[in-house]
């Protein structure tokens, strides 16, 4: 024991870090901030440290070469003892890190922590969010599988839409004319050197400001932030009623970080590593590429934007979003901090959360995509065929053979790109059905060239049977009057 003390003294005489470290650890914080609401920042840092360690471990095996990366991931998963576990830790650590960074951001937003004098802390925090998402995206590329390959294609297609410099941006992003070895190499450099370097510097500045300016006090309704008086008020709050950060507040941070690490370990063991999915071979086209969880909302958004508005929204939207986040502390740098007195702030968070949640949920089901194999793998349910005429059954055959089922569902089977057809006959008359099939429209291709008149007749005869048993199909009333009643088929 005395030896350790002597060693410590020997080092401290030379390093002279003991006193500043002790002072930093014991700096006084407002009493109420020793709260479970104030643990997310340290948890995000813990996740990042886990990512650094597991990332270095993965780099011992991983080969950043387009021809070898996928094989080296297979080796990690199957050939190296517990390689799968390190991959799983890194993958789940990434998900947890993004999630905790987002929660941290929501917490500091609702607690008004971005207000004077912590504007710059918030701005660096926004940059930290961006580099964290940058890490998530570049990391997804390093898992060089089909999803990564086509994800890069999506990224390049978006980049190419930038006016004037779009094509150059694509070449710079890919490092050449196509997605290949140079592409992977530069994403490796970004993921391993550039973005982590930025992340570490931003974290340093962020933490330094938290220490220098002090942690945001617990917001009290009615306690208004004013530039002239805030510093004095905060000083009194910390020095009269404050408590030392270590050990009064830090134990909650330590417990929560431990809990998060444990959760990552449990997820890694239970769910295992992410992929890799199929080989990054662009000649294998039987694939439906999808991004990782935190980019699913964007994937969904891309299918819902109207074509004409897509490019401007894609290019201007993110810029506006970032500008709004950066401008926030300057627009609302003073005033009420408590979320109880800031209804618009609460509504904004709810709106964003519901939007992102809805889009993510939709992207997990991709109702906008044709189900590519519905025509050959999902038969028409038997009740749609019972007691039908030969013509109507032939129409059902046309329905399958011409891939109608890929986009239209019957009894909840098949694609959801177009409307479900279970009751189509009560919505459209026979003439309208024929017109819709032949000319398309309303986002449906025209089938006029691909169907013979006999096939069209059969298909429409089948569609006319799709109505509830107690409800008659739609009829054109004027047609019945104009023509002799006997000429109108009574189906």
């Amino acid at each position, binding site marked *: 024991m005395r030896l350790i003390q002597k060693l410590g003294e020997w080092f401290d005489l030379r390093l002279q870090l003991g006193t500043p470290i002790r002072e930093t650890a014991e700096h006084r914080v407002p009493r109420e901030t020793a709260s479970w609401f104030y643990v997310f920042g340290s948890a995000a840092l813990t996740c990042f440290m886990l990512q650094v360690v597991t990332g270095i471990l993965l780099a011992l095996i991983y080969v950043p070469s387009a021809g070898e990366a996928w094989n080296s991931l297979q080796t990690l998963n199957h050939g190296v003892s517990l390689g799968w576990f390190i991959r799983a830790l890194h993958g789940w650590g990434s998900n947890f890190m993004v999630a905790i960074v987002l929660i941290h951001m929501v917490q500091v937003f609702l607690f008004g922590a971005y207000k004077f004098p912590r504007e710059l802390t918030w701005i660096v925090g926004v940059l930290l969010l961006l580099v964290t998402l940058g890490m998530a995206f570049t990391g997804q590329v390093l898992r060089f599988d089909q999803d990564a390959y086509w994800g890069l*294609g999506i990224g390049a*297609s978006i980049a190419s839409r930038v006016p004037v410099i779009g094509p150059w941006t694509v070449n710079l992003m890919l490092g050449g*004319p196509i997605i290949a070895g140079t592409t992977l190499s530069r994403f490796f450099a970004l993921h391993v050197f550039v973005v982590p370097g930025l992340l570490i510097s931003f974290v340093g500045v962020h933490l330094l400001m938290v220490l220098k300016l002090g942690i945001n006090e617990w917001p009290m309704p009615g306690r208004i932030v004013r530039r002239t008086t805030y510093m004095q008020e905060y000083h009194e709050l910390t020095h009269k009623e404050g408590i030392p950060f270590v050990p009064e507040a830090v134990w909650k941070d330590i417990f929560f970080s431990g809990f998060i690490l444990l959760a990552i370990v449990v997820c890694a063991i239970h769910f295992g590593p992410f992929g890799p999915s199929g080989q990054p071979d*662009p000649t294998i*086209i039987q694939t*439906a590429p999808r991004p990782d969880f935190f980019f699913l909302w964007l994937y969904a958004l*891309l299918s819902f934007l109207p074509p004409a508005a*897509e490019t401007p929204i894609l290019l201007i939207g993110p810029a506006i979003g970032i500008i709004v986040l950066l401008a926030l502390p300057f627009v609302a740098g003073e005033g009420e901090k408590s979320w109880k007195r800031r209804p618009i702030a609460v509504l904004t968070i709810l709106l964003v959360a519901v939007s992102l949640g809805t889009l993510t949920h939709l992207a997990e089901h991709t109702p*906008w995509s044709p189900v*590519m194999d519905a025509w050959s793998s999902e038969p028409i349910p038997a009740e749609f065929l019972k007691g039908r005429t030969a013509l109507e059954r032939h129409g059902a055959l046309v329905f399958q053979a011409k891939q109608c089922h890929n986009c239209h569902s019957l009894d909840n089977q098949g694609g959801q790109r177009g409307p479900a057809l279970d009751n189509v006959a009560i919505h459209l008359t026979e003439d309208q059905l024929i017109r819709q099939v032949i000319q398309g429209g309303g986002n449906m291709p025209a089938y006029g060239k691909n169907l013979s008149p006999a096939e069209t007749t059969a298909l429409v005869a089948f569609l006319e049977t799709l109505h509830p048993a107690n409800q008659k199909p739609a009829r054109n009333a004027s047609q019945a009057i104009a023509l002799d009643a006997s000429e109108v088929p009574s189906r």
Partner: protein
Amino acid sequence: MSAENGVSRRAALVKLGMFLNGIVGVLLAVPVVRYLISPVTRQKKFGYESWLSLGTLEQFPAGQTRLATYRNPLVNDWDGETGNIACWVRRVDDQTFQVFAINCAHLGCPVRWFPQSSLFMCPCHGGAYYQDGSRASGPPERGLFQYRYKIEDGKLLIKAGEMPTPGQPVANKTGAKKTCA
């Protein structure tokens, strides 16, 4: 007086030193930037595209659309499978072809051909195209990208080498006529 002179001389030396470093910095920056933007300068100087064979004409029966693959003209040894690119070849009649890029004109996902309904469908966001590559439905703003082709010695050649994107479709660059709105 002499002390003041000394200080001002040192200040001047610091400025001179910084100036020197500035010049060296610029000298270093030029090659670094040229190295970084080489994918762009190379494209502008030589272009990435060249004529490639997709095989003999017999592989593509008239009236049908078939998948063909080629090795990209500019590849490195370590590119592996990523250097193999697929495309759709439609033989309209004896001498008329259409060669479509595999990449959807929306966001580049691989489109699949369905001969029964004569449609190309995209698995990502549901874009659909008719057999002549023109837009049928979904988010794409235009038809499928087309490669320029020619027939030589009974072989089908296309001019390819760069991934087509909405901002740089092959057809626009090579001057082939646009197929659709």
